[in-house]
């Protein structure tokens, strides 16, 4: 039988060969390079030209760096392609697993009236805004159709604790049915903690349910962002946190913050509040262009450039804390850095390509509507049902997951073929966000040159690369990347 020589044997001797990579200018002098597996390097503008023209000095440090990171290879580097392929395969391995995160919107009712809220109803009308057992049963049927061995069930609202009976019902039903299915199932309740009770906590402990809570910062800021009768949201959060940690353990409660215009001057103070309350990290989150955030102009309260200023200032504060010996992580950075420094995808739905909508996460709304993402159902609250994939009462698994709304959004937003994304160095750690771009630009792909999503990713990347010129920060960021 005729055998072909390996491709490596056809390399011209004495020359190096470029491996595929993309670049993005950081400023007039520096250029960021990333290869197919997402490994990144910064070089000077002149070095980039020399590299591409084939004139790089093969005895220099830059040559070694580029070779070690698979930006070029020499004839004897036989394993380079296999290694790159292995990394790329690892990067896309999650596609095989399919949907993990299943969100159950158990009620739209809420005891809060947050200014930027996307969905909540101040109503005592349980019949209109609570999920019924019948709807939950249909959703559980669909949950077990997912091929993923690891399933995450997240209860959302409104304030989900206002329909705790249903949460109890869903957890018990899933646990019972899972005796047969034998999946790894993790339960999470997203809550403000304002209504947490001893009974609730006892049930959470018994079923190892995690709590994902909301903390926007110091008391005055938190209460201003999150009005409720009695103006005591922060005090309730602190009391609830203490109780929950006592019963569930210190690591069972995490917190999320949302940046409003009022937060922009308060970055270090917000971090201090997280530290004071015993958290080891924070996720600096921007507002999404959905729901009441748009209606109440909260979203227009700041633009991406202003959010990036806030982000850089707060990140610098966190870095300085670490420098002084306080261990504290910025989790948004950790997710992106993990993608930059390794081929493992941390599975953050907003930064996935193909988009995580539907294929990494799915939302069962209180009325049985099925949505491709949490943002999709928020869009629905604004009267746009583009990403409603069906109803648990009317459609089966195959119909929902092959809904044209889902398939075309995934295909149209795919970054490897999208203008600008296809040749962008940030692409390996960025994502396709069809719902955002639909909401802002009217189509799933959007116009990346004008996209706040794109500006944010490029801006954050610039901030990271600049910060990593300091060896302390480079080491810190590597630690964050490994820990998330």
């Amino acid at each position: 039988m005729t055998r072909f020589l390996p491709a490596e044997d056809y390399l011209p001797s004495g020359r190096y060969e470029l491996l595929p990579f993309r670049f993005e200018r950081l400023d007039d002098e520096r250029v960021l390079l990333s290869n197919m597996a997402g490994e990144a390097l910064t070089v000077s503008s002149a070095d980039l030209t020399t590299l591409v023209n084939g004139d790089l000095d093969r005895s220099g440090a830059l040559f070694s760096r580029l070779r070690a990171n698979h930006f070029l290879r020499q004839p004897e580097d036989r394993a380079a392609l296999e290694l790159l392929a292995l990394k790329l395969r690892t990067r896309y391995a999650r596609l095989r697993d399919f949907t993990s995160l299943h969100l159950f919107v158990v009620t739209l009712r809420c005891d809060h009236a947050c200014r930027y809220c996307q969905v909540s109803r101040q109503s005592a009308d349980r019949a209109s805004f609570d999920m019924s057992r019948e709807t939950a049963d249909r959703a559980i049927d669909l949950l077990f159709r997912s091929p993923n061995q690891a399933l995450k069930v997240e209860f959302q609202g409104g304030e989900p604790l206002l329909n705790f009976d249903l949460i109890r019902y869903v957890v018990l039903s899933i646990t019972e049915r899972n005796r047969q299915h034998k999946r790894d199932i993790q339960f999470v309740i997203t809550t403000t903690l304002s209504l947490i009770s001893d009974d609730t906590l006892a049930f959470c402990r018994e079923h190892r349910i995690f709590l994902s809570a909301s903390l926007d910062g110091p008391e005055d800021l938190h209460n201003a962002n999150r009005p409720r009768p009695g103006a005591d949201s922060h005090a309730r959060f602190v009391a609830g946190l203490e109780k929950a940690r006592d019963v569930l353990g210190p690591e069972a409660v995490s917190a999320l913050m949302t940046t409003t215009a009022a937060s922009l001057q308060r970055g270090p103070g917000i971090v201090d509040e997280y530290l004071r309350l015993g958290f080891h990290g924070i996720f600096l989150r921007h507002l999404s262009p959905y729901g009441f955030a748009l209606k109440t102009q909260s979203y227009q309260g700041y633009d991406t450039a202003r959010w990036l200023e806030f982000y850089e200032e707060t990140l610098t504060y966190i870095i300085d804390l670490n420098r002084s010996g306080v261990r504290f992580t910025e989790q948004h950075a950790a997710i992106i850095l993990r993608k930059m420094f390794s081929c493992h995808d941390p599975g953050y739905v907003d930064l996935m390509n193909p988009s995580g909508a539907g294929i990494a996460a799915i939302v069962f709304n209180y009325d049985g509507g099925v949505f491709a993402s949490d943002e999709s159902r928020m869009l629905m609250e604004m009267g746009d049902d583009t990403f409603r994939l069906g109803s648990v009462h009317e459609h089966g698994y195959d119909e929902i997951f092959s809904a044209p709304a889902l398939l075309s959004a995934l295909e149209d937003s795919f970054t490897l073929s999208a203008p600008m994304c296809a040749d962008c160095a940030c692409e390996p750690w960025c994502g396709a966000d069809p719902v955002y771009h639909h909401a802002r630009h009217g189509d799933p792909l959007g116009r990346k040159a004008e996209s706040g999503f794109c500006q944010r990713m490029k801006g954050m990347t610039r901030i990271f690369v600049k910060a990593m010129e300091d060896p302390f920060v480079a080491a810190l960021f590597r630690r964050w990347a490994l820990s998330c």
Partner: protein
Amino acid sequence: MSHMVRIHRITAAGKGAEMAEGNGLSVTLDAQVYDLWAVHQAAYRLSDRLAIQVAIEGSTIQCTLYPVTEGTNSDSLLVARADFLREVTDQMLRARIREVTEPVRNLILAYTFSRSGLQK
């Protein structure tokens, strides 16, 4: 048109540019040196600031740059023009990288997906 030209940074961004009719700036590029595709890609990247009209005239590519936002002054239009020229050069460089790495890129993708189990 050859992709194999050696790439040099544009240093004299003002060359070949003059005020066009209306409030646009015109830029003339030699079609022997610049690729039309690179011009389009650059125009897309700058579409938040500039609307760029592109036409082929003989052996030149004629680009007319219009500011997208009202009230853009001539100084910022000159900066945008320099950015456009820089971006065209970057796009040429990207095309060159894509061209020379195409075979190895296909090989890597073949290795990757031959063992992924994704293409059953």
